[in-house]
């Protein structure tokens, strides 16, 4: 056998090996183009949440009525939305809708022919262990689908691949249990690691995240092989380059980040000089000088550094990149962790196959307000400054709307998408560094000092609730918060949980109060939310609809020139995509924090959304600590009203609307 033929054999085998994922991915992308179905959380791999369906349009949306409903029977917050798959993908005889619930994360397959449950699956989870380690309501953001498998990322970190025909488990793996002790593992609910994100199937992998930044977890983004659930790669948010999968080609703002880019930015905390005003220096100094940001001495606080990952992630297959953002550095008291705390609060572009970062951008260096960077990334071809750009658009918790070149990581636009935002005057477009205002710097003001009137509040100008993009109007439709806060970092002396005590237990160390941004702006308004249309090329608000409460639902845009969103009062709303004019509203049984999806069945277009924010009735049932309390202790003076909410099934309800 000649040497030539041997190497050709290798090439052929490699080609065969490589072709499988490409094929699997192509099939899913083709299915994504069929507007009759909804097969990926964000609708398509660009995360547009846009549908080509136009049966419901801006002329007839006012006629929408409830078509059918489905109660999940579970309490607490219901985020995410349903998947709708054709019979050909599921091994069943008819099209099916797949919907999930809050803890314990049931999955239901609903036959769209009969509106009956074909199967349900309840992952076995240890409630007493898992629920107390979930910082912010026991939500789940939904399901993923690829290669004949439904994926569920359960709260207790178990990632399941289920058979769409019968709900049987094809494989399961624990996301984090495999991490060795020298990397801080194994991670699981026992030491503060849980999951809330939807699993995102991309190519031959299933991507998933990590929650637990409030529990001293060093979080990560992981890719599991869809074929068998084995780990393909894992990229930590902070730590040595080998852990965060950075190499010599990884850039930030167009420059290589160099070795140990994360480790250098976790400075030692000197308790002697950290009382009162900051030892970290004037914000203006460090904003404009990389040297001012250097640590005299580093620490190993990155080992419990946070940087959780629980958003919505798109992919660019021409570049073979997946994009995501991560969350806050551990403990909310910034004084004890001087340094930029890289790479928390950052946007990453990683190679889908290897996980190696091509570029990274830290939006909020040295977070002092809990402005997590986890919000969705949306990919679109935009014209910026007269040039066509492969763009990535991101609405950050910190109140800036970013437009970046998704191939290079170049920062193109960074503008406030709520005029109330005041913690920074602007983002320096050369360095990418936000120019923090001392008055609103909780580190500058110091520990055990209340910083007042900081905008936005820790909720962010927007949280995970995903925006939509319409290629027809070229606008981004963004659900937002319009809330400010007081923020008091709690020192160790005043009872803050220490670094040594932190791993696996609450590690927050801050007191907050929140109120409408109008109180700070002095304009007499009381609305705590807005639903806005955003021009990401110019970085400008086109129009803004005030809402009394924060808008926590995901948006949906359609080819019928209608945009859907929901409110905490429970209204499902349809507005005109161009003008924002209200076309229709419907009061659902609970507040809406789910995402609107649309599909069609037998020629009829449907719009579905989960209604169910949870609340006290849920808290009592679902949270063990509260369940053991007396009614008054848990609920305050609400008396016998418990019965009302129980009787009206204050659980998650999938509301489905159509024309009559």
């Amino acid at each position, binding site marked *: 056998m000649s040497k030539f033929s041997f190497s050709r054999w290798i090439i052929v085998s490699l080609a065969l090996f490589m072709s499988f994922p490409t094929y699997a991915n192509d099939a899913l992308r083709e299915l994504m183009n069929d507007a009759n179905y909804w097969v990926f959380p964000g609708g398509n791999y660009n995360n547009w949440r846009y549908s080509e369906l136009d049966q419901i349009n801006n002329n007839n949306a006012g006629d929408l009525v409830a078509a059918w409903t489905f109660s999940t029977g579970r309490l607490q917050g219901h985020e995410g939305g349903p998947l709708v798959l054709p019979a050909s993908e599921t091994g069943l005889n008819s099209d099916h809708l797949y919907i999930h619930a809050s803890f314990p994360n049931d999955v239901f397959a609903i036959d769209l022919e009969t509106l009956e449950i074909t199967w349900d699956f309840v992952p076995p989870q240890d409630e007493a262990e898992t629920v107390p380690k979930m910082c*912010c309501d026991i939500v789940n953001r939904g399901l993923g689908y690829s290669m004949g498998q439904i994926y569920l990322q359960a709260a207790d970190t178990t990632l399941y691949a289920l058979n769409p025909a019968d709900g049987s488990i094809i494989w399961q793996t624990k996301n984090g249990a495999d991490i060795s002790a020298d990397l801080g593992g194994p991670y699981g609910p026992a030491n503060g690691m849980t999951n809330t994100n939807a699993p995102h199937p991309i190519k031959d992998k299933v991507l998933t995240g990590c929650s637990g930044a409030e529990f001293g977890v060093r979080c990560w983004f992981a890719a599991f092989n869809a074929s068998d659930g084995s780990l393909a790669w894992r990229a930590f948010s902070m730590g040595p380059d080998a852990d965060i999968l950075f190499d010599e080609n990884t850039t930030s703002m167009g420059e290589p980040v160099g070795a140990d880019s994360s480790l250098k930015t976790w400075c030692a905390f000197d308790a002697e000089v950290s009382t009162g005003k900051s030892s970290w220096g004037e914000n203006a100094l460090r904003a404009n000088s990389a040297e001012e940001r250097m640590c005299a001495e580093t620490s190993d606080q990155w080992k419990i550094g946070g940087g959780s990952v629980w958003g919505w992630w798109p992919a660019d297959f021409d570049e073979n990149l997946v994009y995501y953002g991560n969350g806050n550095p551990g403990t909310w008291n910034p004084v004890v962790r001087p340094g930029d705390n890289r790479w928390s609060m950052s946007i990453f572009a990683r190679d889908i196959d290897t996980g190696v970062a091509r570029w990274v951008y830290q939006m909020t260096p040295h977070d002092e307000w809990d402005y997590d960077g986890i919000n969705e990334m949306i990919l679109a071809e935009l014209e910026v400054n007269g040039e066509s750009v492969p763009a990535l658009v991101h609405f950050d918790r910190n109140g800036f709307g970013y437009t970046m070149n998704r191939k290079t990581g170049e920062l193109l636009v960074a503008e406030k998408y709520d005029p109330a935002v005041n913690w920074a005057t602007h983002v320096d477009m050369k360095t990418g560094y936000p120019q923090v205002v001392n008055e609103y710097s909780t580190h500058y003001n110091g520990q055990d000092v209340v910083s007042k009137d900081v905008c936005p509040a820790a909720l962010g100008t927007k949280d995970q609730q995903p925006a939509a993009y319409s290629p027809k109007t070229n606008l981004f439709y963004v659900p937002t918060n319009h809330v400010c806060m007081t923020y008091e970092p709690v020192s160790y002396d005043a009872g803050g949980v220490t670094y040594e005590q932190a791993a696996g237990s609450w590690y927050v160390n801050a007191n907050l109060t929140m109120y409408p941004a109008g109180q700070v702006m002095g304009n007499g308004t009381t609305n705590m939310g807005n639903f806005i249309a955003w021009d990401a090329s110019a970085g400008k608000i086109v129009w803004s609809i005030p809402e009394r409460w924060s808008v926590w639902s995901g948006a949906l845009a359609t080819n019928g020139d209608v945009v859907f969103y929901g409110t905490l009062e429970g209204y499902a709303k349809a507005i005109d995509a161009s003008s924002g004019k209200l076309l229709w509203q419907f009061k659902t049984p609970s507040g809406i924090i789910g995402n609107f999806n649309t599909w069609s069945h037998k020629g009829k277009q449907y719009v579905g959304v989960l209604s169910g*924010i949870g609340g006290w009735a849920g*808290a009592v049932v679902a949270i063990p600590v509260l369940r053991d309390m007396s009614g008054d202790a*848990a609920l305050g003076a609400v008396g*016998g009203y418990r019965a009302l909410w129980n*009787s009206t099934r204050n659980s998650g309800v999938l509301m489905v609307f159509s024309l009559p």
Partner: protein
Amino acid sequence: MLKAVTILALLVPSFAAAAGFPTVETVRMVVGCMAGLGEQSEENLLTCACRQDVLETELSFEVFEEASLQERYNSMPGKRGGLFRDDEISRENLKQLQDARKKAASSCPQVRKVPSVPRETE
């Protein structure tokens, strides 16, 4: 003239929606009230309909909506609940709702039912 008519036409439905309780909410409240009293029965319907009338007189739907959000959501853990716990307007509205409930309960005592079965004698 045409303009004035259009404006009126636009105003009327939104005003009506702000002032009155939507049917779906009234029914939901009455059904919930009956469940709280133990069962759906003619007597409990009378009690609850009476109480509902008092509530709807005492409160605008807007205030009720604000108050019930406060009541349902303020014990949510974390930042989310904080949004409600810290909101002064809805806390005040919740006080109004609680006062209206007290008034409704005192104005409409529970209608008793005489059992149709004779008492057993020893």
